[in-house]
Each structure stands twice: as structure tokens, then as C-alpha cells.
């Protein structure tokens, strides 16, 4: 019951995937429309060349359709697509030095910044806390940030994140864990200071 929305999506995805594999163009279009903008956003967080990213994501879909017969039957579509896009960007970057100057294969950097949900914040105290937390989040190492993004925005599990980032389960888990622990440690310290200041002010 609790994960109704998510589960619904997944079941739906699986069905669409199967239909698409059987050659249903409608199912392909539905999947495309469902995930295209997500993938563009994810891709854009690696590179400022949005045209290339569009090409890249469209190529991923092209390959999926053309080689649909040799694709696995059981995939978590979202995680699979994210991973395809990331791999393709890495490959593109290796080939194209202008794209972004990176040294190693996995060195494409996640340049995305989290923003603050201003509309849902009514009081100043919360606003201050959130702003601070947001700052801490955005200075995290790129990979930790990417892991958080995949986990809490796209709802991937640790296994799927490991797949997308091309690391083992333990490394993916560490990335997530370290990000949270680091932030919490710093945040707690600063929070005490903030509260003291506020108390004094009152």
C-alpha cells in the first residue's frame, strides 16, 4: 500500500518494456515520453552542451529500439536508462576531448546543484536551517552528490545505484553513507551555534 505509486510505475514499466520488446511502437513512445526529460536532466548535470546530451539520450533510445530483441526481459527501466545515458556520456567524452576535459573513464563529474524548496517553507528558522543544509549538500564530492540524487530523487536502490555508477554494492553504499554522516556531523555542530545565537537574539 505504502509504495503504491512507485510500484504502480514499476509494474507499468515492466509491461511497457515487454510490449516494446515485442515490437509495440506505442509502448516505446510511452516509455520515451515518461523518461526522456529525466534523462535529459541527468545528462545535463554532466555537461553544459545540452545539444549533445539530447543527441546522446535519443541515441540511447534508438539503440534500445534497434536492439530490442537482444535486451534483457527483466530490467528496472529507470535504472537501466540512467545507466545507459551515463555510459554513453562517458564514451562520448572519451572520444571527444572538447566535450569536457577529463582524465579517466569515470571522471565525468556530476555538476548538479540541489536547490531549496522555498514554497514549502513558512518560517525563518526552518529557512535558515534548510539553506545551511543545502549549502553543505552542494559542496559534497560529486560522486556522493550523484549517489544522493539517484537515491532520493530517482528512488533507485543501492544495487541500482551501484549499477549506474559502475561500482560494487559496497562502494555505492559507502558513498551514500559517507555523504549523510559527514553532513550530519557538520550540521549538528553548526546547528547548536545557530540555536545559541537565536536564543541570544530573542
Amino acid at each position, binding site marked *: 500500500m505504502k509504495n503504491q*505509486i512507485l510500484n504502480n510505475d514499476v509494474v507499468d514499466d515492466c509491461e511497457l518494456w515487454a510490449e516494446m520488446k515485442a515490437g509495440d511502437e506505442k509502448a516505446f513512445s510511452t516509455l*520515451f515520453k515518461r523518461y*526522456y*526529460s529525466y534523462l535529459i536532466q541527468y545528462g545535463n548535470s554532466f555537461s553544459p552542451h545540452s545539444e549533445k546530451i539530447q543527441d546522446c539520450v535519443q541515441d540511447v533510445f534508438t539503440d534500445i529500439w534497434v536492439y530490442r530483441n537482444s535486451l534483457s526481459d527483466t530490467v528496472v527501466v529507470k535504472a537501466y536508462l540512467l545507466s545507459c545515458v551515463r555510459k554513453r556520456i562517458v564514451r562520448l567524452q572519451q572520444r571527444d576531448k572538447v566535450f569536457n576535459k577529463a582524465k579517466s573513464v569515470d571522471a565525468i563529474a556530476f555538476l548538479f546543484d540541489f536547490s531549496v*524548496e522555498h514554497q514549502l*517553507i513558512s518560517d525563518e528558522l526552518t529557512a535558515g536551517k534548510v539553506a545551511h543544509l543545502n549549502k553543505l549538500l552542494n559542496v559534497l564530492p560529486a560522486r556522493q552528490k550523484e549517489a544522493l540524487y539517484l*537515491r532520493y530523487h530517482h528512488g533507485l536502490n543501492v544495487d541500482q545505484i551501484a549499477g549506474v555508477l559502475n561500482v560494487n554494492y559496497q562502494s555505492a553504499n559507502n558513498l551514500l553513507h559517507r555523504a549523510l554522516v559527514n553532513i550530519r556531523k557538520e550540521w549538528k555542530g553548526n546547528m547548536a551555534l545557530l540555536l545559541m545565537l537565536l536564543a541570544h537574539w530573542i
Partner: protein
Amino acid sequence: MKERNQYREIEDFLADESFRLWMRSKKDLSGWEEWTLEHPKRAKLVEEARLWLLAMKVPDNNMSQEKLNAALQSTWMKIEKTEQESKMELKLIQLWSTAWVRKIAAVLVFGLLSVYVYNNYFASKTYYSSYDEIVNNLDEDGLLEQINNSNKPQIVTLSDGSSVLLQPKSKLSYPKIFTGNERNVYLSGEAFFEISKNPKKPFFVHANEIVTKVVGTSFRIKAYANQSNVEVLVRTGKVKVKSEKAIRNSSQEEIVLLPNQALRFTRKDQTFDKITDITMDKSISSSVKSIEQLSFEFTDIPVSQIFKTIEQAYSVEIDFPQQELEKCHLTTSLSDQPLPEKLKIICKSIGNNSSYTMNGNQITILSKGCN
């Protein structure tokens, strides 16, 4: 997944899809609000998790429907293009799977392979043609050819007075008269050359893939068509050796040989191996022929003895008036002279208008005794 009653860390909340939905869009499908209020400790955790989510906003994907459709359309176009390309590939594959195409390909591959193997391992015949090719191409110039099918060496005298001692199973092509600024001869097999000096008209011996350039000297070349090496051994004077290829490419790569130096040319990889001390090289020193060992330094030696040495060296027969020349002794150095020159010098030394005639292997000395 854990029951939410067991959530102890904010991660637990953050990972909960329905919690995220409640926080972000106020859609409380799972009664989160009620559940939170049940317990004050929960409320604290929930509040912290809320802060995290508020700080982790990802902008909405507000891509317009038009843009999305345009992207989908261009993807379909890409698909069409790719499919056409792969159809072409498929056609090629189908063509390939047709039996006769594969048969032809197999025959071609086999053919090329056998040509390659033939050239590399059974190449004696192709080497052979290099002499024939050259000689046939030059036939218009009126080349003479001497082939030694006997088991004894044969003497060949050239128009410039040079002499060539042709070994069995060898052949030499040479012009009747040397014209132009060069003297060119073509050898297949083994021969000992004694070249008359003429710096204005260098002498070239083409043997298999190498060219030996001389001015005036004596040397031996061993260039059998069916042997993998070509050898040049110098007895007197100086020669320069180049490969035919180097001449065609007008490359400067040449080897200079001095007396008692030799050279071995490996035909397969077209490389030169210079041997500065021929006594160290068994295969060359053991094959040194009698002519190269005989000394032509004569000090007060009877003429009959000198003729005997020449007969032995050149496998010729010398007919001379024994009685008239019985008491003639000569002191002379003939090492560096071709046969006709040797004979001329001897006749001159004997004096009295002595002369010689040469007819193949038969030499006749006409003399009325010495001075």
C-alpha cells in the same frame, strides 16, 4: 523494506517514496501525518527528514509537450536511419551466407595464401627468373650468352679484354661489344672475374638481386638462382656492391669490399653481411677455388711452368712450341690481370714477335723462342 515503525534514521524516511511524496507535494496517501503525531520522538525525526528533503530540491522537469514530441520524432528518424544501415549489413551477411560467395572467397584466400607461401618458401623459381627477366628484357642489345653445362670451369673472354672463369652450371650474358659508358654483364651461378682496368667505363656485374661495381680487379661472385645467398669475394682491387633495389630507388646504400674481404647477401630479407676476414668464414674459405689460391707472382720461372699454372687456373689448354721456349725463364707479376692480358704480357716478355690465338678453351702460342 523496513516497517515504518522501525525507522530510526532519517535515511529510512528519505528512502521512502510515499514519505517523499507527502513532504514534497502534500499528498499524504499513507497517513503520515497521523502516524507522526502518534509519537513525539517520531515527530523530531520526521522534522529533520523534512529539512533534508527541502534542502534537496531538484527542479521539475517542465519540458513542454511539443519539445517532447519533437524529440520523439527525431528519435524515430534516427531509428529509421540505423535500421536502414543494419539492413545493408544484413544484406551483406546474407550474401556472405550464400554458398557460392563463400566458395569464391575461400578460393581467393587460398590462392593469395599459396602465392604468398610460394614466394616465401619455394621462391627459387622466382629468383631464377630475375636473371632470365633481365636477360630477356635486354635481348635487343644483342647479348651473347655462355652457359657452362660441363663439369669443368670455362673461360669467357669479353670484348674489353676482361676474362671470366665460369663455373659449372652457371651462365653469363654479356654484350658482344661494350658500348656506352658502362660495361654490364649478367651472371647466374658462380664465376671468377678478372676485369681489365678502365676507370672511364666502370664494369657492373648483375647477379640475382645485387650489382657489383668494379673498375679493374679480380673477384668471384657466387649467385646460383636456387641458393638463398649471393656471395662476392674480392681477390685484388676494390669493388662496390649494391642491391638492384637500391639502384632502382637510387639509394646510397652500398658496400665497399677490399682484397680478401667478402660479402654475403641474404636474398630473403635483402640484407648484406660483410665478412672482413674470409679465413674466419668456413663456408667461403672452403669454397675458394684453385685460381684464387694460385700465385701469379713468377720469379725466374720457366715459361712452360707459367703456362701450366694458367692451364690449371683457367681450365684451358695451351699449345706452345716446347723446344723453342724450353730455355725461357720469366720474372713477372700477373696477379691482377685478366687472362688475355696475362698472355699478352707473357708474349711480350718472350719477345721475338711472339703472339697468341685463343679459340674457346684452346690457346695457341706462336713463338720462335725468346730473346
